[in-house]
Each structure stands twice: as C-alpha cells, then as structure tokens.
C-alpha cells in the first residue's frame, strides 16, 4: 500500500523527515544525558555539598568578602537544612574544570536545545496555517536557539578559566 503526498520528495518533505530523525537521535541521547545530569545535580552524591560542607563553604566566603554578611542577613543565602544536599559554586567549579565534563555539558545543552526547539516549532506549526506567519515563527525560534546556545556555551567554557 503506497500513499502519495503532494509534496513527496520535495525539499519540505525531506526536511520534515530530517527533523523526525533528529528528534529520535537527540531524544535517545537526552535520555542518557539527563539520567547523568539528574544523578549529578539532584541526588545526594559527592557532586553536591552536605549541610556541614556548605556551612564551611559559607565561612570561607565570609572571610573573602563581607557582602556575604548582608546576603545571609537578607535571606539571599541560606544555610542548608540537616540532611540537605546543596549545589554549590565550588563543587560545580571542581567538576567543570575537567574538559570531559565541559564536553558532556555542552553536548547536553545542544541536544536539549535542538530537541526542545524542533519540538516547539513542530507544535507551533500545528496551530498556524499562514505560511508567512509560520516562517516568521520558525525564524524567531532559530534566533532564540542560537542565542541560548551561545549563552550556554560561553558560560560553560568560562567556568574555571580565570
């Protein structure tokens, strides 16, 4: 049983097939990356500071800069609860100093952005009939993607480069 579509074999059709493939590739990649990301950033592992370690970190911050006193008094920085594990600057710095983690995080960023923005364009395209509007939205989505990718890569590369 073969179906014939109006635009079969056209550039638009091929681009849609490519998007379909990209969503599968980046999706499966993201499952692996996100398991790792969640394990490192949200579970009580050595990549996070325990409550004791965090109060030590705050003490060293206090010695380095007196602004921290105000920040703690205002509640902008809070001590950890007993049993809590906190993402902290020094632990992230320690991890992101290794080039392997930089590569992993940049790949995660690019996979997530590509998967998310292609999916967003797919969803938005379902609700827009006018071709010019659709093209404008796709253009905006790509602009946002490039901006966020640049922002993220600059941040990841800059960590520990001082």
């Amino acid at each position, binding site marked *: 049983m073969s179906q014939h579509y109006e635009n079969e074999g056209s550039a638009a059709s091929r681009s849609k097939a490519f998007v379909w493939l990209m969503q599968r590739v980046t999706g499966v990649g993201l499952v692996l990356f996100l398991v790792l990301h*969640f394990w490192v950033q*949200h579970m009580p592992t050595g990549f996070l500071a325990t409550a004791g370690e965090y109060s030590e970190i705050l003490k060293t911050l206090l010695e380095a800069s007196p602004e921290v006193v105000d920040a703690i008094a205002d509640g902008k*920085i*809070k001590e950890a609860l007993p049993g*809590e594990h906190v993402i902290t600057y020094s632990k*992230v710095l320690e991890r992101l100093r290794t080039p392997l983690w930089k590569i992993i995080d940049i790949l995660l960023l690019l996979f997530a952005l590509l998967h998310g923005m292609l999916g*967003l364009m797919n*969803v938005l395209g379902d609700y827009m009939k006018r071709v010019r509007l659709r093209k404008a939205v796709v253009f905006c989505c790509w602009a946002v993607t490039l901006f966020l990718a640049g922002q993220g890569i600059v941040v990841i590369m*800059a960590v520990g480069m001082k």
Partner: protein
Amino acid sequence: MAPRFRHGQGFYYCLIAQSLRNGAIWMVFIHVLTYRGMTQNKLPGQSDTTPSFRTFLSTIFSYRVRSGMAAWILHRVTGLSLVLYLAIHIMGLRSLGNPLAFEAYITGYRNPLFKFAEVMLLGSVAFHAFNGLRIFAQDMYFRSERQKPLFYAVLALTIIVTIIGGLPIIFPYFITPLLP
C-alpha cells in the same frame, strides 16, 4: 540542635491547603457563572445548545480521552513546559561567573515551593522520556494494538521514577522536620 521549622514549612502547608480551598471555590464560581448555557440531555455540538463558556467546557470534557490521546496531550504539555524551563535554566546559569551570585541563585531554588516544582520537573522529564521511547519503539517494532499496555507501562514507570527520585529532594524539607 537545629530549629525545626527554619524555612517556615508550616506556612507552606497552609499555602497548599489554601490553594486547594481556592480551587474548590473557583469550581463552584465557574459552575454558577456558566449555568445559563446549559441545556438538559443534549449532546455537545448539537445546534440548540446556546453557545457559552459552559457548553464549551462540556464539549471539551465530553471527549472520551483514551490512552493514545492522553499520551499525545501529556507529551505536548510536558514538552512545552520543559522548553520553557530550559530557557530559564540557561539564562540562570549566567550567575556561574560569580560565587556570591551563584549561591544566591541556588538559594532561590531552595525555597520549599520550588522543591515541589523540582519533583514535578522530574515527573515531566520522566513521562516525556518514557513516552518518547514508547513512540520510537512503536514506530520501529510494535504493532498498534500494543500501544495501550505500553502506555500503561509508561505511566507506571513515570510514577515509580518520580517517587524514587523525588524522595531525596523533599525529604529534608517536608519529612525530616516531622520526624521525632
């Protein structure tokens, strides 16, 4: 000994109770507000129902949401919310240039309300991932009559992963203070 209600958990429990109560009040309010358009024993979409918010709602809820449609809607909603979160996340990481700003940024996310949001984020990611894998597997290997059991497997896996991953997140905030 550490004080037991340092972040004011009592306040947040009150907030949750209040939002439940407000939800109930809003439901009654919408019921009263939209009563005018209701006609009895009419199928939605039939011409002699007066067009109103009420008939719109009853049309929406008259669709029998079967597993495939539920999967489609949930995949869309979780996907959109994750894109939104991704953008916020990337912009927030700019504070990695300054230790003080970074600790303040993370403290913002350590608010007890955000801990619920974090668990919901995990649930969204888990559902989107498992459902995505189901779609991929179905495209490749399974016939369509397998989709219902596969969807229920997706739901079960999502719930299991959310509970296992969510417990360490909410434990220090909502469970440790209640322990003797």
